[in-house]
């Protein structure tokens, strides 16, 4: 069994962070939508850009190494997003949210291990 290069792990972990900020900017832009033209605002553009950037990092990251190691690392992005939602948008941590997210994370790990 070959190891997974540190550079791949760093790339995938980086993709998770970049993607979580993409989600923050999408949310920032989305709450300001008023009409079809307001879709063209810098927050949404930055959000989409960060998303695409994150998928490039992810694509580069998974070229080498094992998906079973790398895949669960992507799902850490959900934890970052939950944290940013709390910090920037003052969304509450409720018990069902935390339980639901925990099950999603466990599921992502199992999907990675079973791939």
């Amino acid at each position, binding site marked *: 069994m070959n190891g997974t290069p540190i550079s791949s792990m760093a790339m995938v972990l980086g993709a998770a962070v970049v993607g979580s900020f993409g989600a923050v900017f999408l949310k920032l832009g989305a709450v300001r939508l008023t009409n079809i033209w307001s879709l063209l605002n810098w927050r949404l553009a930055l959000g989409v850009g960060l998303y695409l950037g994150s998928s490039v990092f992810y694509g580069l990251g998974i070229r080498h190494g094992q998906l079973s190691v790398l895949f669960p690392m992507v799902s850490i992005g959900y934890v970052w997003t939950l944290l940013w939602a709390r910090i920037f948008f003052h969304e509450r941590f409720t018990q069902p949210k935390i339980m*639901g997210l925990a099950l999603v994370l466990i599921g992502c790990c199992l999907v990675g291990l079973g791939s």
Partner: protein
Amino acid sequence: MSTTASSPYASDASAVERRRSVIMVSSCTLISAAAQILMKIGMTHFTPNAMAIVTNVPLIAGYALYGVFCLMMILALRQGELSLIYPIISLAYVWVTVLSYFLFHDTIRPLKMAGILSIMVGVAMLGRGGRE
């Protein structure tokens, strides 16, 4: 940057609006899964040549569907809480696995099956439990 008296992020969206965003994102993940599968098909006969890329129908359709997915996500985020909506995107893994099973006859190992079930239960919990 505009500052208004009431925060636009206050989580006072009604249960109906919340449910609407949850349903929208859940159906959106089907589109995202279809996009991923089309991109995968398109990438298998990818050649770095402008003409080949322009005529690569699955690849272009995949990116177009991804655009639709982004747009629907943005609309869902208008009302829904980010911490609620974002983890629901993981449903796409479920659809990709199921679609790959039928389209490419990929085998689903028991661990993967367990993971998929766990994601589904987690998303169901998020969908039901966003209320205070």
